[in-house]
């Protein structure tokens, strides 16, 4: 079952919400509704399902309604229509006490500008969620210390927030959110106020913490690189509507519309796309001990190949043999594949393109893609990489080469 299920959610700001909702449902445009009712539509018919333990990233430009959407998950914004169930319970129908309990024990939140309490020390800030629940001082300090250790702030317990750098302050923000043992974390552009170096470090730390604690995280960002790095699932939002939702690679490889395309336009694809995405299956192979020169030659002639892969008896990838070497060997009347075996760089299927680029230097032959048992699963040609990074197809590449020479 999904941890969080959001169905047909509408969030409208203004006084004449009902009228605005009716107009929206009858297909009127946002602009028209705004002119008539002075209402703005922040979230427009959004349905999401979020699995337990995943990082669900909602990405969009400012004003796309992503932060408003996030605030529905703990009812800081009360949806105009629709339902949100957490563990099967509809939070939009909760009474006051249940809602307080939801906020206190189930859903933690991290803010863009940290939202720390300037008049409290770090340990009191971290323990704030527990203080509200009237947990006694000793118990909440114990818990807070444990969490402060996890986020790596030991020794700063008695400082005040203003004495800490931005990155450290946000660690306090994260610590405060996880100190209550809430299973769900809402992170509202949590790292956007930090400089790039610290931000990337915080992202790594978040992934580490996530590995340990396995929370369900809803992360809001306007930064695609951040979304791709953190997200198990990414939803792209525009004007209150989710325009595409899927895994990071899914979104990169099949952008749903021009808006998404524009978004991913400046992404460094070579860092995100992995070997398994662009490799081609490599079926022509010969096995040491079983096949000889003749069968290798026959295989190459049948498939019109210049080379063929060689695997060992226990199916491990060994290298390639070239057709001309095989022919020379046969003409000389010698036997055995080992002596003409060429060493070929191997890459794992989850290596990114930028990881494998250096291996192409001085390499005329495709790289071999192997799995963790060193079994050959495919190969990657340099031209595929060029096509992927530049976005040109093979013919365009040829044309460029011709024009250049």
């Amino acid at each position, binding site marked *: 079952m999904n941890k969080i299920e959001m169905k047909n959610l509408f969030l409208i700001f203004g006084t004449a919400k009902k009228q605005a909702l009716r107009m929206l449902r009858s297909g009127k445009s946002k602009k028209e509704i705004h002119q008539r009712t002075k209402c703005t539509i922040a979230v427009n018919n959004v349905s999401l399902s979020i699995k337990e333990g995943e990082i669900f990233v909602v990405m969009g430009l400012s004003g796309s309604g992503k932060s408003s959407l996030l605030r529905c998950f703990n009812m800081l914004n009360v949806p105009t229509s629709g339902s949100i169930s957490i563990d099967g319970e509809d939070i939009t129908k909760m009474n006051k006490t249940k809602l307080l309990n939801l906020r206190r024990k189930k*859903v933690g939140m991290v803010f863009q500008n940290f939202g720390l309490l300037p*008049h409290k020390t770090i340990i009191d800030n971290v323990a704030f969620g527990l203080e509200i629940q009237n947990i006694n001082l000793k118990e909440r300090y114990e818990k807070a210390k444990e969490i402060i250790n996890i986020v790596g702030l030991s020794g700063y317990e008695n400082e*005040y927030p203003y004495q800490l750098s931005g990155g450290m302050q946000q660690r306090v923000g994260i610590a405060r959110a996880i100190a209550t043992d809430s299973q769900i974390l809402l992170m509202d552009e949590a790292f956007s106020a930090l400089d790039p170096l610290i931000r990337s470090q915080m992202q790594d730390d978040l992934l580490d913490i996530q590995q340990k604690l396995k929370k369900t995280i809803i992360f809001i960002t306007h930064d695609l690189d951040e979304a791709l790095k953190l997200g198990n699932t990414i939803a792209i939002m525009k004007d209150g509507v989710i325009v595409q939702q899927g895994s990071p690679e899914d979104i990169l490889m099949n952008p749903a519309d021009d808006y998404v395309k524009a978004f991913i336009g400046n992404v460094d694809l070579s860092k995100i796309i992995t070997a398994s995405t662009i490799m081609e299956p490599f079926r022509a192979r010969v096995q040491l001990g079983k096949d000889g020169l003749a069968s290798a030659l026959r295989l190459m002639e049948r498939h019109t190949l210049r080379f063929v892969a060689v695997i060992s008896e226990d199916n491990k990838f060994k290298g390639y043999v070239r057709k001309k070497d095989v022919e020379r060997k046969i003409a000389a009347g010698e036997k055995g594949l080992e002596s003409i075996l060429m060493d070929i760089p191997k890459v794992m299927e989850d290596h990114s393109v930028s990881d494998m680029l250096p291996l192409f230097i001085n390499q005329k032959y495709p790289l071999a893609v192997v799995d963790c048992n060193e079994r050959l699963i495919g190969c990657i040609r340099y031209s595929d990489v060029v096509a992927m990074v530049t976005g040109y197809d093979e013919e365009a590449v040829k044309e460029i080469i011709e024009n250049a020479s």
Partner: protein
Amino acid sequence: MNKLDIGKYIERFVDWLSDTAAPLFRQITIMIDNSVNVLQELLGYVPFYMIIAIVALIAFIIKKKSLGNHKYWQNNIATLIGFPLFCVLGLLLIYWMGFWEQTMDTFILVLVATLIVLMIGIPLGIWCAYNKKAYAIIRPLLDFMQTMPAFVYLIPAILFFSVGNVPGVLATVIFSLPPAVRMTALGIKSVPKEVVEASVAFGCTRRQTLFKVQMPLAMTTILAGINQVIMLSLSMVVIASMVGAGGLGESVYAGIQQADVALGFEAGLCIVILAIILDRMTQLLGKEKEEQK
């Protein structure tokens, strides 16, 4: 053309009010009179040098706290000692000039008025911060209260509470209420939105948000308000001597009536000293709060 007689209607209203609400006014009179008397007796028992010592000690503690943990004062004893020393010398001067009792009386009037103002003003300020409509109605009233010449309050005050300390205190309360309300509302409203949002997101009830987040963070501003309240009270308490309120104001008033420059100046000087001590103390309290931000 007939003259528009707003004054007449107000007068009629005041008359009506003094008739109908007489029991209430009597109760208020008794309460304020009692608290002033009790305080007067209490301070009367304490010898002057004890009071001076206590004031100097309070001044010392507040000053030290306001300097924070920087240990800055260790290098500069003058900064630390200056204010307590001023308190001692100033109060001794008052004693030697023979205005000790009047000064204590004035201090008590200011104290009672300020306490009443805070009891009314801070809750009202909180309400204004939460409720836009309430603030829209209360704000012009506050402006009115502050700009209306202070003497005018004395007239109905006499009608309601006759002469003496009570009308003086109440006129003072009305005159110095606005900054308490305004600064409380301002302080609460200027608490960063994200901090308030965070407290709600972690499950604070409205009361918890108010007392654990908004009030502590608004404290600097509220203390600045309290400082203004005390200063306004002090100036009004002097004027209130016209309706029979005691203390230094009485001496100043006597000085005016008898064209006695010496008396007027001496009493005035005592007021100045009292004002400086009260002002610095409340200001330092505010600074100490600011330190923690």
